[in-house]
């Protein structure tokens, strides 16, 4: 270009150019505008960094705080008590199984009598409820000091009519014969506020049940005694343990109080050091001196606890011997198959339990009150802890596993439901649907995105929960594990709603992926004589699989991060779901990572360990979302078809 003759008009050109050259503080305004927009573009980056910064600022102190708390937990001897207390919890489970077995056995004899009694009482309550208004009026009128016989008469008649109507309206179960039914009706009709005794028929029914119950208890006397023996076995041990626990708790409270006062004193001294006004300084120093707390001699008080190790071990040994005897005494036969199974479970469970108790007792000797708590064990206690207990009078634990399990199980349910539905819908809309169908399906599915999550949560409480519960009570569906369900609000319910929420994301992204499949692939397949179905499932879907997979991953990210639906619908029970229930586990309630933050953050004070723990959960959630995003991108890149 340089070789070309340059036009001979440089003066005009330079004049034109110069006239435009405004500068602001020595900068070219065009550049400034560009930097303005550029800086706005970096907002996304800055916000991501700020999210990290603020989460870390509030949450990172969690580990040292929790370390201090666990240290106190150990030094005050709470840990010592828990060594025995934790395995002793098993006693409760075993004895409740025994109780269940016992009541199942007793029921074989007394069930009809009990049912008849309960049904009669229920009927009586129903009749009384239905005629409550006139009944109350009459009772009031009767209580008045000068009784008005005319009014009472009117009220009596009213009550009579209401009761008669109620007696006719209630449903009598099949348990009663026609004669009994008539007698009940007669007796109910005679119910007035003055009658305090039970109607005679009910009295007979109660007596019937008591007779049957006694009979049953004599028949299963072995089981009754074994159960009582087992329940009483823990009492002496529990007594010793309770004494130790009270002592440990007292020490802990003193230590915590000391720490609070001490930090307060330090702060006052600090303030005094920086204060310039001598008068203020003197008053601050004085205040600091006054708040000197009584130091706690942890070593002294722990000696009182560890000094009784031998006694405790002895009690554990006694307990183990007694329950082993109880296990041997357990009768072979029980009333029903279910009860027999329960008894067998207990019989097998007791030796295991005894072994655990003995192992725990042996551990007591190795325990040292001043062994430091390492930061790694604190991390372990958080990331692998199985208990999330807050506001406890004993000790707060922040274990992450119950929340994570809840979140993961719900997410798995949601993805398992949403994936087939949204992929099928995407394939159909993209490949088979007519234009008119597309115009119906696409906007409706995209509309789901606009439904606020709290509305879906509300639907879960008010509609889906009852629906699932009703369905689970249908008799021909009883083969489904977990049916009939106990809780309306459970993981399956939440999973269904989250699946519904994830459908639009997964649908649109999958449809995009199918759209992006090169035209040539389809043409080639058609040219080879493939049917439409073959083209779709052997060419288009495999070619778009990367997009579909990344759509599923992004849907997963959305499901794990969703808050309101799980908060409202998942049932909010902070415990690891009982996986021994098999696939029926999905009908149990659970708590989640997102739900716990939303539920508890409003009620904790800033800077407490609980607050910091919730921010730690937030950090983990943030990390999960970044990881899921990264995976989705990696998958999309990995399986990208090589475009010709």
């Amino acid at each position, binding site marked *: 270009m340089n070789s070309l003759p340059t036009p001979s008009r440089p003066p005009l050109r330079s004049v034109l150019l110069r006239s435009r050259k405004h500068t602001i503080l020595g900068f070219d305004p065009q550049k400034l505008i560009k930097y303005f927009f550029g800086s706005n573009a970096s907002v*996304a980056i800055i916000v991501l960094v700020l999210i990290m910064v*603020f989460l870390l600022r509030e949450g990172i102190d969690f580990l040292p705080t929790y370390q201090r708390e666990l240290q106190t937990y150990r030094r005050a001897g709470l840990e010592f008590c828990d060594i025995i207390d934790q395995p002793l919890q098993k006693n409760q489970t075993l004895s409740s199984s025994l109780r269940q077995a016992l009541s199942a056995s007793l029921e074989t004899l007394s069930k009809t009598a009990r049912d008849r009694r309960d049904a009669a009482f229920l009927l009586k309550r129903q009749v009384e409820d239905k005629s409550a208004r006139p009944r109350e009026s009459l009772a009031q009128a009767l209580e008045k000091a000068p009784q008005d016989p005319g009014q009472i008469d009117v009220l009596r008649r009213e009550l009579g009519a209401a009761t008669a109507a109620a007696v006719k309206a209630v449903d009598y179960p099949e348990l009663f014969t026609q004669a009994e039914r008539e007698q009940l009706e007669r007796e109910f009709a005679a119910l007035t506020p003055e009658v305090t005794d039970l109607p005679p028929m009910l009295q007979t029914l109660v007596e019937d049940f008591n007779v049957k119950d006694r009979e049953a208890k004599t028949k299963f006397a072995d089981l009754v005694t074994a159960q009582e023996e087992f329940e009483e076995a823990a009492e002496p041990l529990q007594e010793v343990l309770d004494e130790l626990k009270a002592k440990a708790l007292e020490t802990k409270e003193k230590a915590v109080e000391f720490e609070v006062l001490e930090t307060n004193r330090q702060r006052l001294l600090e303030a005094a050091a920086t204060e310039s006004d001598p008068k203020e300084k003197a008053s601050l120093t004085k205040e600091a001196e006054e708040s000197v707390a009584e130091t706690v001699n942890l070593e002294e008080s722990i000696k009182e606890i560890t000094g009784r190790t031998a006694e405790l071990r002895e009690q554990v040994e006694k307990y183990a011997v007694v329950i082993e005897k109880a296990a041997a005494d357990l009768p072979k036969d029980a009333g029903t198959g279910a009860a027999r199974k329960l008894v067998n479970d207990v019989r097998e469970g007791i030796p295991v339990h005894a072994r655990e108790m003995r192992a725990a007792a042996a551990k007591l000797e190795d325990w040292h009150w001043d062994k430091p708590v390492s930061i790694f064990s604190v991390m372990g206690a958080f990331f692998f802890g199985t208990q999330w207990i807050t506001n406890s009078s004993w000790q707060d634990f922040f274990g992450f596993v119950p929340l994570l399990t809840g979140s993961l199980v719900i997410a798995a349910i949601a993805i398992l439901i949403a994936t087939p539905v949204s992929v099928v819908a995407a394939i159909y809309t993209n490949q088979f649907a007519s234009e008119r169908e597309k115009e119906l399906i696409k906007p409706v599915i995209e509309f789901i995105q606009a439904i606020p999550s709290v*509305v879906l*949560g509300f639907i879960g409480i008010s509609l889906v929960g009852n629906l699932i519960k009703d369905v689970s009570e249908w008799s021909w569906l009883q083969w489904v594990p977990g049916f009939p369900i106990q809780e309306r609000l459970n993981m399956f319910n939440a999973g269904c709603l989250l699946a519904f929420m994830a459908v639009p994301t997964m649908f649109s992204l999958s449809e995009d992926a199918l759209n992006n499949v090169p035209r040539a692939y389809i043409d080639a397949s058609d040219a080879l004589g493939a049917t439409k179905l073959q083209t779709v499932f052997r060419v288009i879907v495999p070619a778009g699989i990367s997009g579909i997979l990344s759509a599923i991953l992004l849907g997963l990210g959305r499901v794990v991060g969703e808050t309101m639906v799980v908060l*409202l619908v998942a049932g909010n029970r902070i415990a690891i779901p009982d996986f021994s229930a098999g696939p029926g586990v999905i009908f149990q309630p659970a708590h989640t990572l997102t739900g716990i933050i939303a539920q508890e953050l409003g009620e904790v004070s800033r800077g407490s360990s609980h607050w910091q723990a919730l*921010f730690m959960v937030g950090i983990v959630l943030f990390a999960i979302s970044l990881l899921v995003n990264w995976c989705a991108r990696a998958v999309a890149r990995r399986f990208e078809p090589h475009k010709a």
Partner: protein
Amino acid sequence: MNPAPTNDNPFAGDNSGIQQRETAARWALRVGSYIVVLITLAIMLHIFIKGAPVVFQSKWPFVNTQFLTELPATLHVIEDQQGNHIETDVNGADAVKKKLGDNFRSEKTVSYSGGGILGPIVGTALLVIVSVGVALFLGVACAIYLSEYAKHGKFLEMVRLAILNLAGVPSVVFGLFGLGAFVLTAPTFVDVPADRSVFSIPLGFTTLSFEGWDTCVLSGGFTLAFVILPVIITASEQCLQAVPQGFRETSMALGATRWQTIRYSVLPFATPGILTSSILGIARAAGETAPIMFTAALAFKDKLPWQKDLPPLPADASIFAHWEQSVARFLGIFTESVQALPYHIYTLAAKIPQNEYAERAQYGSVFVFLVLVASLAASSVMLRKRLRAKYRW
């Protein structure tokens, strides 16, 4: 009904297994897709059937004005001896009881379920205004950079990655961020910095202290702004990209600067699209609950944001004092915490015992909320369609 295939026609379809399988698979796919559609419609119908009777009535003016124009209140249900239920608020309860005298039987209170939902509606509107204002400013500027200025490189890649990741951050984490950043740390002008202030810069007449804005509309609005930022950026960039390249080239060829090109040849054609797409952002901001739980929302408040008690002015107050108080009242709107519709629904659904009265308030609120959000989303879709028809390059 197709006539039975005859062997005469060599091109007639055959009923072989392949074709049957083809039809069966097609129907399976169709049923799968329509299940989603049906479930969506069923949910809408359920809310409509249960919610519409609360909001509409058969008498003039056909709309339950009380429900839409009153603040939420505690509902008192008084039963008399004849079994009639009288609904009233806390002020009316005593009068009703007095009137009934001996006829009074029982009284039941249901929190938050009386009155109407004006407070939550106003609060949500304020939050949406703040958040959309902030998000539109940042988002459109960002989109202009991405579409008009950016060259391929590290920075652009980082920005795109950041936007993608921001879109995936769980909303409750945004809530935590808003709590840490805006409620507890954001800079504000005060006379005396609070203890919790991170640091403060004395400015002579006042102090710039990083002590946070407390829970208020501003904190919640800013938090929501970052929740919807990715939506706005993506939508705006699409609209800018849709303006034909030729417009820019023509403008540049005429000697316009880059900014003039953007200002006169790109933005005028992209703005309608950007605005309609940002309606989707509004719908999203109005629907989010978790980000405002700790930053702006209150379960109960008996005043509208502008009904704040200010010290009465002396009778001879100057016009300046009046003016100052009006400004303070206006600014006060944004520094108050408010009720918001989604949080109100959460409170009704999860924090109070369920009964018929609570259920009525729940379905009424849900219905109004859904109608608002759905009409926003629908209008966005419709406007976009119309715009597409109008600007066909």
